[in-house]
Every structure is written in structure tokens, then in C-alpha cells.
């Protein structure tokens, strides 16, 4: 049952990403279309705009949730693909361990950045 619970988390993370990354993509890449409608940020990639968003609690929290969900979804998906390559059980375990550790490190790094700028 353990594997199927991890798989359900993969689905849940996917659903979270669908909304949060959708929002992220709308703000970052459909900005001119949003600007027509009178919402969103002009020049979302400029330093001023980026830092203004980083200092809002909403964006800080959603960045961290998106970071965690996306890392889990992506790395679990990668693990699932590697598990289909008919490798030995030991190698599968080692790869799963490496992916878990690197995921945690990336999450810590990203979350630290988001919180550091929010607090500063």
C-alpha cells in the first residue's frame, strides 16, 4: 500500500501544481495579455517587480508550496521512470535515496531563499 500512497501524493502534487504553476505562468508569460485586462504586473521579470512580489506573504507561501509540490511531483515521476528500466532492487533503492536527499536539499535551498528575502 505504501507505493500507492506515494502515487496518490504524486497526483495531489500534480493538482496543486496545476493551479499554482498556472498562476505563475499567467503572471510571468501572459503578462501583456493580463495587462490588456488591467491586472497583473508589467515587466514581471524586472528586479523591482520580482522583489515587490517576493516581499508579499501570499507569494512567499505559494512559492514554497509550489516548490515542494513540483519537486515531489518531478522527482517521484523521475523515480517512477527509472524504476521501469528493469534495474536491480538495490540500485532502485539507491536511486530513490539519492533523489529523496537531492529533493530535500533543493527544497531547503529554495525555501531558505524565499523566506530570507521575505524577512529582509
Amino acid at each position, binding site marked *: 500500500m505504501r507505493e500507492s500512497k506515494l502515487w496518490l501524493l504524486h*497526483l495531489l502534487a500534480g493538482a496543486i501544481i496545476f493551479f499554482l504553476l498556472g498562476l505563475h505562468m499567467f503572471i510571468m508569460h501572459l503578462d501583456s495579455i493580463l495587462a490588456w485586462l488591467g491586472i497583473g504586473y508589467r515587466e514581471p521579470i524586472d528586479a523591482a517587480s520580482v522583489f515587490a512580489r517576493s516581499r508579499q506573504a501570499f507569494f512567499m507561501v505559494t512559492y514554497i508550496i509550489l*516548490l515542494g509540490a513540483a519537486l515531489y511531483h518531478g522527482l517521484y515521476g523521475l523515480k517512477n521512470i527509472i524504476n521501469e528500466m528493469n534495474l536491480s532492487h538495490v540500485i532502485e533503492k539507491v536511486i530513490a535515496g539519492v533523489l529523496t536527499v537531492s529533493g530535500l536539499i533543493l527544497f531547503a535551498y529554495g525555501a531558505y531563499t524565499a523566506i530570507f528575502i521575505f524577512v529582509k
Partner: protein
Amino acid sequence: MPDEKKLQTVQHKKNRLGIAGWVYGGRYGAERYAYTLHRITGLGILFYFILHIFATGSRIWGEAAWTRTMALFDSPVFKAGEFLVFIAFAYHALNGLRLLFTELGCWMGKPQRPVIPYKNAVRRQRPALVVLMIIALVIIILGGFDFYLLGE
């Protein structure tokens, strides 16, 4: 009488398709191609995402560092790469939405007695695939406008 030793050494020929079996859709249905693309775009987005974490991490050193990092990526090649990631995102998100619903048993009807000509659940959910792919295409076109016509 067959030579027993010879029979034992006779090997069956391995015939697994291997990775080619993931990529090559052959004469199978649209979902098989959707599966292949989902896998490729997923791996692409994961690769971009890890780079993205480090690139945006530069803002911890202040606004000047951010502007410098962004200047690094301000070339047509990177812009095209980003647009590719945007396409991958639009596809992966909308196909993923279909998978989310179908894997939870929606859009596929109920089990029925098999009557010729057989209809299967894959066919029953195919309209959803078509509609979602049209939405993905619209989003990609809007993104294209933003990337290449309206932006900057």
C-alpha cells in the same frame, strides 16, 4: 531422443522493445503519443525547474545580482528555450488534468457487457483529450504572442 544437454543450452531470444517501446507509438491510438509526449515534456520541465531554482536563487544577493543573472539569459536562444518550456508546461498541465480525472475513474463511463463492435474506455474519454489539446494549443498561441510579439 533429443540431446538433453543441448536442450538446456538453447536460449530463448530476448524480444523486449526497450526504451524504443516508450518512444515509438507505431499504429496505436492518440493516447500512446500523449503518453510519450507527457514523459518527454515532464523530464524537460524537471530539468528546467532545477536550473530555475538555482537561477532565481540569485535574488538572495540583492537586486543587482538578479539583474545580472537575468542578463545572462537574455539571448534569443534562451528565449526560444523558455518558449519550449512554456509549450511543454501547457501540454503537460492539460494532459495531466486529463490523466488526473481518468485515473480517478471519471470521463470513462461504466463497465458494460462487451458487444461487437467493442467500445473501450479509452475511446470514451478521447473527446476530453481533443478538447484539452485545443485549450493547450490556444494557451501556446497566446504565450507565443506574449513571447515574441507583445513583450518588450
